[in-house]
């Protein structure tokens, strides 16, 4: 998989410059980070992976995921995944205009009641990222006959502000007979949408794990106790190693899953990433001691995001069950070959 190194360097520069500690803190208080968004939008980063013909910035899925991974490294507090890879993908796929400004997506959680009744949207959707900051809220809903992609203006809905553990808006949206601004039949089912959503979280988590590993290695090399760097202690080294293992495992799984977004690979990657979120944050915090528990030190920007993204679009047990179902559907004699091949070529179930 070859992603243009220049694209990655540019993304790295944009997010490193704008996602400062202060900017992340302000974003939590304000519910949005216009500076981060503006810098990313200026060079088209949110629309990478959306075809230019649909109003996107071109590039393929691997490019978009690679940029998202950089954003994950810096905890970029903007709806980057939602605008291009999720809402943009849905809109473009349904022949609708992608539009300008940030878009968000109804992730479709269990218990949501959103539906299309007589051409109007009714019900409640939860966990909608940055709903009030977005130009449009996109959802896949049923009209009783099939799936439709709809887009609506946030102003036409009642938005209840809810934040995830990282202080990122994950709002509840109430709709009472709202006429969508756009609507078209969808070729994407809610299951496929969830898979795509999981893929975006894998990329973000791979970035956050990388950053967490780097940060923890650096901190423990500097911090001295008993006359030496704490990284010299074997028990501390064990934390560093387990954290690096999680980062390496999820990093490569993210690359593999991003190649062709086959159900098995995405499911396996999200299962690994969500499990790593627990073990890696535990190791990183233990290695940091009390410093990692302060608001001032940046570890929490990463750990709180990992704890949040761990559950978004399905937690580890959800995806492990899914992988288990896919594995059980293969004849056992052929299972190893299927796993080694990433179930490439197997029809998505």
């Amino acid at each position: 998989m070859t992603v243009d190194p220049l694209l990655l360097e540019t993304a790295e520069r944009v997010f490193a410059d704008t996602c400062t500690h202060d900017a992340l803190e302000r974003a939590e208080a304000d519910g949005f980070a216009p500076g981060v968004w503006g810098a990313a939008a200026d060079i088209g980063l949110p629309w990478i992976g959306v075809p230019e013909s649909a109003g996107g910035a071109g590039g393929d899925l691997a490019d978009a995921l690679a940029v998202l991974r950089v954003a994950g490294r810096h905890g970029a507090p903007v709806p980057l995944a939602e605008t291009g890879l999720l809402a943009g993908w849905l809109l473009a796929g349904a022949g609708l205009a992608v539009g300008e400004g940030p878009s968000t997506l109804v992730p479709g959680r269990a218990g949501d009641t959103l539906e299309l009744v007589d051409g109007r949207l009714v019900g409640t959707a939860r966990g909608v990222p940055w709903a009030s900051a977005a130009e449009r809220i996109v959802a896949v809903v049923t009209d009783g006959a099939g799936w439709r992609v709809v887009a609506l203006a946030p102003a036409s809905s009642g938005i209840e502000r809810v934040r995830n553990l990282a202080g990122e808006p994950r709002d509840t949206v109430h709709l009472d007979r709202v006429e969508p601004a756009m609507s078209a039949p969808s070729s994407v089912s809610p299951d496929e949408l969830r898979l795509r959503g999981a893929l975006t979280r894998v990329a973000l988590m791979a970035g956050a794990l990388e950053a967490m590993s780097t940060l923890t290695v650096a901190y423990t090399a500097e911090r001295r106790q008993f006359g030496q760097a704490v990284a010299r202690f074997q028990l501390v080294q064990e934390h560093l190693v387990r954290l690096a293992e999680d980062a390496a495992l999820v990093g490569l799984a993210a690359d593999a899953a991003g190649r062709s977004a086959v159900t098995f690979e995405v499911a396996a990657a999200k299962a690994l990433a969500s499990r790593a979120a627990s073990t890696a944050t535990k190791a990183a915090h233990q290695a940091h001691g009390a410093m990692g528990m302060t608001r001032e030190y940046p570890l929490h920007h990463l750990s709180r995001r990992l704890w949040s993204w761990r559950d978004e679009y399905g937690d580890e047990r959800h995806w492990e069950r899914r992988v288990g179902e896919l594995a059980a559907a293969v004849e056992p004699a052929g299972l190893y070959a299927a796993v080694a091949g990433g179930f490439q070529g197997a029809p998505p179930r």
Partner: protein
Amino acid sequence: MTLGFELVELTEGERALQQEVRAFLAEELPRGTFEPGLGMDAPADRSFSQKLGAKGWLGMAMPARYGGAERGAVDRFLVVEELLRWGAPVYHHWTADRQSCQVILRFGTEEQKQRFIPAICAGDLAFCIGLSEPDAGSDLAAVKTRAVKVDGGWQLNGTKIWTTAAHEADWFIVLCRTAEAEDRHHGLSQLLVDLSSPGVQVNPIPFLDGGHHFSEVVMTDVFVPDELLLGEAGRGWEQTGNELAYERGGPDRFLSTWTLVEQYLRDHEGTELGERARELTGWAVARFWGIRQLSIAVNRMIDRGLAPAAEAALVKDLGTRFEQDVIAALAELHDGFASLDSQSLFERLLARSILAGPSYTIRGGTTEILVGIISKGLR
């Protein structure tokens, strides 16, 4: 983080090799006709190894002039992966193929290469590892086995321990002290020792399951001719470090308990798995898939001439701890009872893996040693 894992895409040739090995195993070793091994814990079968040799699947990276296939580490990964997941009887050629031929190629004389490598590639010769001693385990530089220069060769005295398959192997490569040195990493050498030499005595050390897997090898005034000094006298430490560095990242470090998972699914084929069973088999399969990517990436790095010592150690640590977790997961799922005497293959595999499992994170470098190597690579 400075670790350099990159996703591996297999070439057409590599995929074809995979298919060829699968077809060979289905033909040569049909399921149900043999008791599958648990990774490298599998029987030694010289004639099976010779068949692999005839296919060009032993010593795969060796030059053609020594009987090798001139293929790379990824090719070897793909062949070995298929053999291990099949539970094939790999032990006869195991050590010779994985590491002995590599060190002989790298440090051996032309005469040694011609004498040993073709025989290893043919599956004829079995090697074992002469490193650990009663007082030198993880601290290998503490070896006390000593070789003294005599006319035409070396006189060797000492004791090696935990030597896997010493009773079945033909040769072993002995790390011994040949000179005193202020720095104890100097003055060590490697000797190629014929296990049938006079003065070599192999004493079985019963394994905890009662079987005979490893031994103590006592060497009393063993004469080793000059031409069997491997590499340079006094450089044994560096040569050994090299021997251990990359072999750690192979498929044997995460596949030891695959047959257990596969057999569980075979036993439940056609029945709906319960929620916990779907969850745990899914957990295991996802991790097999993920760790495999890391392991194959290490082998691609070796083919590119890189030195992935920390990456290989990481794969071993992650992979072997996973192998053990798989045992616990399947033991949780299974209602019956693990026994070596069971009529059920799954129960026999479960029993064998419970008994052998602790060795996964000990053999080939303990977890504790690996943590030191990996954390050096992170700095």
